[in-house]
């Protein structure tokens, strides 16, 4: 490895597996640093293509999304860093493919839990082809003021506090990603800040090692001192010991290896990182700290001693004239995300949608405040669900049962009515379920299925005005309107509709009052004097009984009842019920494998 800088202010990356937050954080960092180009050139999201909208400062930009690594590398030939946010399952395959692209020079692997055998294969390939791996199990790294990988350095506030928007004089490398952020802050407190920082990751075999990066820092002139944070487990630190002993590193190295607590444990302990395992003496924190110190590194006696030692080392370098502290400046403010600002209570924004019938945000969704589990456990029916979602209240069981009866009675009325016919023709045209269903539903209106609604409206109007059946029917006749809810193709006074009888009986038994039905029956009495088939039909019966339900249940105000009739609740009942039948017709046609329907010529009158 060795060589020098990995990144610059022009470095661009390809980001594998779209993650909005880390990419946005990279772009915010770019803006803070005054970069001219965004550091993410493109996104690779297997299986999708197009663009992803993100912010670059105040502006929105569209970042291209590619479905394959190869394609992305071809389009973005100057992007040489590959940031891999794949899961531990797929990180190996995608990282290997990325390493094999000639345009890619650095691969950062974020996933924790990549099998070490897989990582070894990546390491072997990278070494043979002069490429650099950062990770796995890392947050990434940062070159202050130039380029940052993913979530490195956390929030914008932290980046500003740690002065990462402009380069300092310190090179930093650690195993731990979390601690790297802490050290950026410590280093910003005690020196002129970070030049570059890398977290190599907590695995047993990191893709690049502590010493790989320290040797690289040796070759970067802007870096005047190096801080290393190691960890117990593994022998990685010894290659740094060797490099120091051989004089390959001449810049001051302040180092600390954490894990001195391992001696407190009697048996082997697996600490938080995969590579951090207490075991052999050589791999202990004490041994590694001693070896580093013997090799010439500056090693404190505890982690708490690290900060003062960094400060002392830096101050000495300033006094010796090796470092002339970099002048600071105020970075441009990055506009805050709306969601963040709202969360912090700094701004408020109006909502665009209001909903009053249900809530799916809690542990369990509710219908008008009633939990779904309550509905199931208390043995409620679909009528109760309609009661909650349509009327926003729990109606008594006799009402919800009436609703269920209406749905059962209106579910279907044979294949010849316009709705079913349309559905059948559409299904036979090879269309899907939803298309077939809606083509049938779309016929519901003033001529088909609209009678319940109209019957209720007119009966209500006439009854409320106190019109006699005679006055009402004759007034309708004068206006040229057929009385809705009255009349049947087959049924007559002598051949009663069974459904009407059943509903009538139910209403009479369970409803506190059936004023409207009785009015409708009086109307029928009069119309029957005109013709034997002008009976109260099922639409008229449902319409009038529904009015009785609304009024006699005493659960609705007059205003609410008017509104329910006005905005078409009863039509809703018919649409819902008939959906059941139309779905049945669709499946029926598909099951029967019926061919495309074509209306016969013979059945058409061709004329001029």
């Amino acid at each position, binding site marked *: 490895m060795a060589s020098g800088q990995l990144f610059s202010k022009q470095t661009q990356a390809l980001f594998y597996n779209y993650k909005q*937050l*880390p990419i946005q954080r990279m772009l915010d960092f770019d803006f803070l640093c005054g970069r001219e180009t965004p550091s993410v050139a493109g996104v690779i999201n297997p299986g999708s293509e197009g663009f992803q909208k993100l912010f670059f400062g105040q502006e929105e930009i569209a970042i291209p999304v590619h479905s394959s690594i190869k394609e992305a590398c071809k389009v973005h030939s100057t992007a040489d860093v590959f940031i891999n946010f794949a899961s*531990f399952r797929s990180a190996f395959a995608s990282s290997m493919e990325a390493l094999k692209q000639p345009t890619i020079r650095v691969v950062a692997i974020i996933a*924790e*839990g*990549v*099998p*070490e*055998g897989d990582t*070894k*294969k990546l390491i*072997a*390939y990278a*070494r043979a082809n002069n490429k650099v791996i950062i990770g796995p199990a890392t*947050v990434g790294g940062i070159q202050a003021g130039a380029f940052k990988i993913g*979530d*490195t350095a*956390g*929030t914008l506030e*932290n980046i500003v*506090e740690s002065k990462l928007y402009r380069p300092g004089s310190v090179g930093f490398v*650690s*195993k*731990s*990603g*979390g*601690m790297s*952020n*802490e050290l950026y*802050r*410590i280093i910003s407190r005690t020196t002129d800040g970070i030049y570059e920082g890398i977290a190599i990751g*907590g695995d*047993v*075999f990191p893709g690049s*090692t502590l010493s790989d990066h320290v040797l690289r820092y040796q070759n970067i002139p802007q870096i005047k001192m190096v801080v290393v944070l190691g*960890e117990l487990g593994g022998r990685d630190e010894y290659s740094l010991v060797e490099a120091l002993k051989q004089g390959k590193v001449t810049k001051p190295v302040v180092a600390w290896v*954490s*894990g*001195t*607590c391992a*001696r*407190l*444990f*009697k*048996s*082997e*302990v*697996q*600490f*938080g*990182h*995969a590579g*951090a395992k207490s075991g052999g003496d050589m791999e202990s*924190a004490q041994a590694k700290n001693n070896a580093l110190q013997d090799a010439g590194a500056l090693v404190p*006696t*505890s*982690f*708490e001693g690290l*900060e003062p030692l960094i400060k002392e080392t830096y101050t000495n370098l300033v006094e010796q004239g090796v470092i002339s502290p970099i002048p600071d400046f105020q970075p441009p403010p990055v506009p805050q995300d709306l969601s963040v600002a709202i*969360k912090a209570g700094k701004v408020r924004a109006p909502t665009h949608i209001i909903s009053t019938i249900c809530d799916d945000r809690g542990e369990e969704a509710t219908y008008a405040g009633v939990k779904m589990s309550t509905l199931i456990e208390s043995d409620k029916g679909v009528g109760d669900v309609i009661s909650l979602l349509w009327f926003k209240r729990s109606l008594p069981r006799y009402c919800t049962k009436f609703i269920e009866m209406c749905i059962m009675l209106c579910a279907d009325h044979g294949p010849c009515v316009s709705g079913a016919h349309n559905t059948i023709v559409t299904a036979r045209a090879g269309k899907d379920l939803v298309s077939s269903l809606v083509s049938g539903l779309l016929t519901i209106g003033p001529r088909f299925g609209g009678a319940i609604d109209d019957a209720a409206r007119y009966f209500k109007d006439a009854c409320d005005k106190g019109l006699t059946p005679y006055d009402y029917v004759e007034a309708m006749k004068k206006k040229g309107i057929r009385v809705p809810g009255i009349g049947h193709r087959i049924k007559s006074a002598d051949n009663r509709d069974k459904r009407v009888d059943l509903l009538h009986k139910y209403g009479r038994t369970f409803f506190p009052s059936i004023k409207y039905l009785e009015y409708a029956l009086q109307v029928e009495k009069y119309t029957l004097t005109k013709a034997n088939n002008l009976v109260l039909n099922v639409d008229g019966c449902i319409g009038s009984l529904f009015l009785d339900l609304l009024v006699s249940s005493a659960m609705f105000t007059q205003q609410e009842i008017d509104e329910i009739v006005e905005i078409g609740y009863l039509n809703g009942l018919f649409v819902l019920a008939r959906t059941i039948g139309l779905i049945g017709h669709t499946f029926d046609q598909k099951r029967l494998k019926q061919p495309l329907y074509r209306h016969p010529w013979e059945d058409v009158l061709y004329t001029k």
Partner: protein
Amino acid sequence: MARKKIREYDSKRILKEHLKRLAGISLDIKSAQVTQSTDFDELVQQEPWLSSTKLVVKPDMLFGKRGKSGLVALNLDLTGVMAFVKERLGKEVEMGGAKAPISTFIVEPFVPHDDEYYFSITSDRLGSTVSFSECGGIEIEENWDKVKQIFVPTGQSLNTEICAPLIATLSLEVRGKIEAFIRGVFNVFEDLDFTFLEMNPFTLVNGEPYPLDMRGELDDTAAFKNFQKWGNVEFPLPFGRVMTPAEQLVYAMDEKTSASLKLSILNSKARIWTMVAGGGASVIYADTVGDLGYATDLGNYAEYSGAPKEEEVLHYARVLIDCATASPDGRGRALIVGGGIANFTDVAATFGGIIRAMREKQNQMREGKMRVYVRRGGPNWQQGLAKMRALSKEINVPIEVYGPEASMTGICKEAIDYVQVSG
């Protein structure tokens, strides 16, 4: 989530199955596992050789040097094995400073032999090291200078040429068999994500390699691709690591989540407890308490990271607070809720879980005279810390709260000072 030792029984089972598949070599080895729940009658039905051959029995507990410690019994019949097991099952032994009862044995046919070969493979960063010696057995450490080693770089297959230095001095009759065996085992090692494998010794029975003693270590992060090949493999805890019920609870949670939740109890009566975010920071907090000279007062090592859900943190914190307040003694105790400056973990969200747990456990916290010391930074830290401050007033438990501007480990000293002053 890393390298895990497996029992000798599993090592041999996996080796036998996959050496056949990958190298066409049939090992004539048989093993039976004996634990507390073993019914010997049933076992004999499954493994009839147990009643017809002379046997070897030894503990299968992830520790070595069993021969040297007199824990291997040779040339017994089944009754002898049963007596050996009965006498030792559940008895504590001390190995390498760790003490624990023996719970698992391995029983195998007794194989009289002369030759004892040593063979091991270790996984290194750039490849694997294969070691071989004709002078294996319990004196291997004394004879380490006779061990030959080769390094096989990653991606290279272990061919005849690379293998040659290991077996150059073997007689011609055995050389071919042993080479094929070493190469076959190497393939098994790579194919099944072993990270360590050792046979000390293996011998030759009728000219065929026969491992007598074997140790294996698998990379459990590779479970997602190997679970079928590994079969029903067990990952026992390191020897001597007996989990307390609390540790078991957290261990079970850790297995189920994509986040990381760790708890090791050091001293259940101790008065300084930690609950720290982050793999790196958690170690440093434990270090610092020790470096300040109060290792004996440290109750535990604990780590949560990888953006655990609020509910997960809640369960985790409940367990930990229960441990920390289990033995109130009138003296003060401290809980260090520490952490570095998070990169992406939502501090307010994870603190939400801790706060709910503390609210639930406030009585026992007050009874235990517990003070809480909080230090954390990262996304939403202001909100998280403000909630902590509010909680202190609400439940009347002193909670000292620091943000990213404070030194990370400063609260260790404060915790120690409080514990000292309060008796």
